[in-house]
């Protein structure tokens, strides 16, 4: 793969895998719905491949369900190769969440395009820069004070991407008083920027505050330029430590199974949540309260943040993450090609990409191989690859 792009690779790069994935997910979803109308298929098809269910049933009931354990160990072995691809491409509960976040982004996209406000106050003192998609995306706010002499340096930083923070500009507004004096410089910078990045048009406005405001999609913290904060209207962001919650839930559930003989995780695996919640569709209403309430919870959390359930709760995701840490086929980031446009960070379903930091895929084991990052990458820097 190192000897340039092959024909197949060029051909593949024209395909958006997102649509393909949704088609597969929808087909599996319909298959699941159909199989549940058959009398004894839901457990046999869906639940028997679930390693969490079979393991906790074995330890809870002091039984040795050989068939379940065999099939589910095959499932675990498969995730040694493909990682958590099951979550991204097959899981019906994941499909529900994907559809919800797609609908959400469709609603949000109307009327708000990515905007960059490049504002100069006194050319001698400071700069006010606003980058964002709209009011809802106001997340970062950075003070930037520089002398006029270093204005050039700032533009140079931006142009080469060395500032590390302002990486994508779709619009630069150039207006009013300073147009005459700085237009040339900004346009030059924009041209430079445009060689590797996408933007639509250039506008600039005078600033009143002498500061840079960064509108980004996620994250807050320290940066060389100053401090970000998370103002009102910022996107909901769960602390990253919560990713351990699903492992805690897995450990706790298995220990509960051992100690109390009660298959605690049965309520929580995605294999059971959806069939349980949707069983009223064919007239079985007795067991649905738990399933419906969990499904409502999943939906509400998915509205807040993409695949919240998969990120922080799902015990099946937790157990699949363990072999997935040493997976063979997974999403890899080519740092040489990466232009730090942050599109993949925004697109990532699991919120694990961090191209600003040093690490690339920060939580590689939790990547569900949905390839949303690959679809949006303008530089072909990220995508499926063998280790």
């Amino acid at each position, binding site marked *: 793969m190192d000897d340039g792009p092959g024909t197949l690779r060029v051909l593949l790069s024209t395909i958006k895998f997102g649509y393909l994935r949704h088609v597969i997910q929808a087909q599996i979803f319909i298959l699941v719905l159909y199989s549940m109308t058959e009398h004894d298929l839901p457990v046999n098809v869906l639940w028997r491949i679930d390693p969490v269910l079979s393991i906790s*049933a074995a330890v809870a*009931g002091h039984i040795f*369900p050989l068939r379940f354990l065999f099939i589910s160990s095959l499932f675990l072995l498969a995730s040694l190769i493909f990682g958590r691809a099951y979550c991204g491409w097959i899981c019906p509960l994941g499909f529900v969440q994907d559809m919800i976040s797609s609908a959400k982004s469709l609603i949000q996209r109307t009327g708000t395009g990515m905007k960059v406000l490049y504002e100069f106050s006194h050319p001698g003192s400071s700069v006010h820069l606003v980058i964002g998609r709209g009011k809802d995306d106001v997340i970062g706010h950075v003070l930037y004070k520089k002398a006029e002499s270093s204005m050039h340096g700032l533009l140079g930083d931006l142009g080469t991407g060395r500032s590390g923070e302002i990486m994508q500009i779709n619009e630069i507004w150039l207006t009013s008083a300073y147009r005459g004096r700085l237009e040339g410089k900004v346009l030059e910078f924009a041209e430079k920027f445009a060689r590797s990045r996408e933007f639509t048009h250039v506008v600039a406005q005078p600033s009143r505050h002498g500061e840079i405001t960064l509108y980004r999609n996620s994250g807050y913290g320290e940066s060389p330029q100053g401090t970000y904060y998370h103002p009102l209207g910022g996107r909901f962001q769960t602390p990253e430590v919560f990713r*351990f919650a699903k492992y805690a839930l897995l450990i*706790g559930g298995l220990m509960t199974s051992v100690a109390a*003989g009660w298959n605690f995780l049965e309520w929580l695996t995605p294999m059971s949540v959806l069939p349980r919640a949707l069983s009223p569709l064919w007239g*079985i209403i007795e*067991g649905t309260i738990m399933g419906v309430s969990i499904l409502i919870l999943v939906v509400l959390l998915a509205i807040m943040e993409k695949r919240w359930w998969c990120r922080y709760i799902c015990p099946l995701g937790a157990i699949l993450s363990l072999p997935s840490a040493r997976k063979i086929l997974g999403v890899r980031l080519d740092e040489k090609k990466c232009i730090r446009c942050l599109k993949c960070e925004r697109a990532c379903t699991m919120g694990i990409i961090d191209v600003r930091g040093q690490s690339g895929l920060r939580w*590689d084991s939790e990547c569900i191989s949905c390839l949303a990052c690959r679809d949006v990458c303008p530089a072909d820097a990220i995508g499926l690859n063998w280790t």
Partner: protein
Amino acid sequence: MSGKRGNTAFDSVSRRHFLATLGAGTAISLAGVTLGGKTGRTEVLRPPGAIEERAFLSLCARCGRCVPVCPNSALQLQGLENGMDNLMTPKLVPALGHCIMPLNGCQNCIEACPAKVLQPLDISELPTQELSRVLKIGTATLDTSRCIPYSLKQPCLACWEICPVVGAITIHGGTGKGKGGGIRKPVFNPEVCVGCGACEFACPTSPKSVRVLPAGSKRTEWN
């Protein structure tokens, strides 16, 4: 494409995070044990063919499919009355309806069970006196202080009339002399009783004089 391998979650896990995860897991399991309790703490009247209780609780899908197929509405899903571990597992409530399996060999709940925690019972060849060798849901017990023939000395044989199992309820008395001596009284034979609950269903007293208890139930092995 010479991709840089990203850090895995396990490379970036600090010792503090690892211990915190373990601690949280322990806390969750403690909470689960407290809520769920020890399995088998409370015995419940299960549907016919139910496998051994530990395996039943670990494998029952709590899907509720056995409930609507019961022709007598005998099965109900449990709430939290017997702890979290029994939540939404089926229970036979003879006061609402009795199991008619000893009558006509109905196996609707067994056929409906997707998790196979209700195992098929072959009772077609057996005479009703020997049913309890295979089918034993529980054992009916009589509270003679409430039972009408015993306490009020009035005639009542509702349980004997409905009982589908020959020999499970026998009639004693009816020949004696003195006050109440001529009243025929039902006597329960726990060895023959299959625990279908017809007697409890038919019992006219309130509260019921006859209770079917899960004691002595035969549970099949899971396979």
